[in-house]
């Protein structure tokens, strides 16, 4: 009434005016290119393909280390259909030494991708994970935003870097699977050698 509401408001804005010089609570701006906030561990931007370099002598040999076996579940589940996979004709040994298909072509169109993480959730092989890199603008709208499998492949170490807790859990799970698989392989190998031996005999 009678202008005191206006004066109250003016006092409030004055408080904020001076407050913004003294209180970090009020002035929350982060001046982006110079200042950055570290991304949260849960942050997700676009997917990438994990490869295990540890298990291979090369270390940088992304192609043979890819965990992806081209099962195409993510392609089917992807809501905006931004993943395109072509299955290989031949098979290669995977990290566990089993013969698997591999993706002859694995494209993600990040101009279509909506960072929903569903591909990560549905992947049974822990092969696709979310990156935290977000500065991906290019001048080429068509080619530059269509990432092929070489651009998508990132090492497991990188995965550990950006999502440490999650990656550790994944590693433990894979290791457990590996032990199980090895046990199985051993059994089958033994059976095989026995069979071979049997055949030889």
């Amino acid at each position: 009434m009678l202008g005191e509401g206006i004066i109250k408001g003016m006092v409030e804005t004055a408080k904020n005016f001076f407050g913004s010089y003294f209180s970090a609570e009020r002035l929350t701006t982060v001046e982006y290119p110079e200042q950055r906030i570290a991304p949260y561990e849960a942050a997700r931007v676009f997917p990438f393909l994990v490869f295990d370099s540890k298990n291979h002598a090369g270390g940088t040999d992304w192609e043979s280390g890819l965990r992806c076996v081209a099962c195409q579940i993510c392609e089917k589940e992807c809501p905006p259909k931004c993943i395109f996979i072509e299955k290989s004709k031949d098979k290669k040994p995977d990290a566990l030494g089993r013969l698997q298909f591999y993706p002859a072509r694995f494209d993600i169109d990040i101009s279509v991708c909506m960072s929903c993480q569903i591909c990560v959730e549905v992947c049974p092989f822990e092969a696709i994970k979310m990156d935290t890199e977000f500065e991906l603008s290019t001048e080429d709208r068509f080619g530059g935003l269509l990432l092929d499998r070489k651009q998508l492949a990132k090492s497991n170490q990188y995965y550990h870097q950006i999502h440490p807790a999650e990656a550790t859990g994944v590693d433990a799970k894979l290791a457990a699977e590996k032990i199980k698989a090895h046990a199985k392989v051993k059994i089958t190998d033994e059976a095989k050698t026995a069979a071979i031996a049997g055949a030889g005999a």
Partner: protein
Amino acid sequence: MKTVEEIKAMIEAAVPGAVVEIVPNPSPSGQHSLRLAPECALAVAKFLRDDAELRLDFLSNVTGVDWPDSLEAVYHLYSVEKKHGPVVIRMKTVNRTDQVELPSLTPIWRSAEFQEREIFDLYGIIFTGHPDLRRLLMWEGFKDHPMRRDYREPDDYEYEPTAHDDVLKRAQAHQVSATGQPIPGQEGTEDAA
């Protein structure tokens, strides 16, 4: 809250000549519905709204459904005053092509106004008695009804680099027919590699 059987009995007692059929819903939600004959729907709706016991004064949701043999409009009713619901009523058209009229319930519940317009727009059900039946989401002059299951998307959507298979073929064909030029970067080279 009354069961659908009770409501059916109430309707039949109150509205002479009303044809009501119970449509059971086998899902765990247990929201069974009442199918009304279009001729009596307006009278039944008025009864449902004004009846002292039911007082379904709030029409929450109107949905169009495209069944293989007919189109359907589903109405979810609640009562703001008695705080119960939902009562689901539905109406079916005779077929999907030429006899697609249903009575509009907008005179009873104003909230049907935009939703029935939307169904008219996307499904092509003609609501007779609607005060302002125009397309809602598509533009005027648009042909066809996009939510129908046999709707075929036009080929002239914006080109996306990951288009593949038949989508890519259609996009390429459209691009060539429209501009005489193939789509840049997708002339088939990458596919070959």
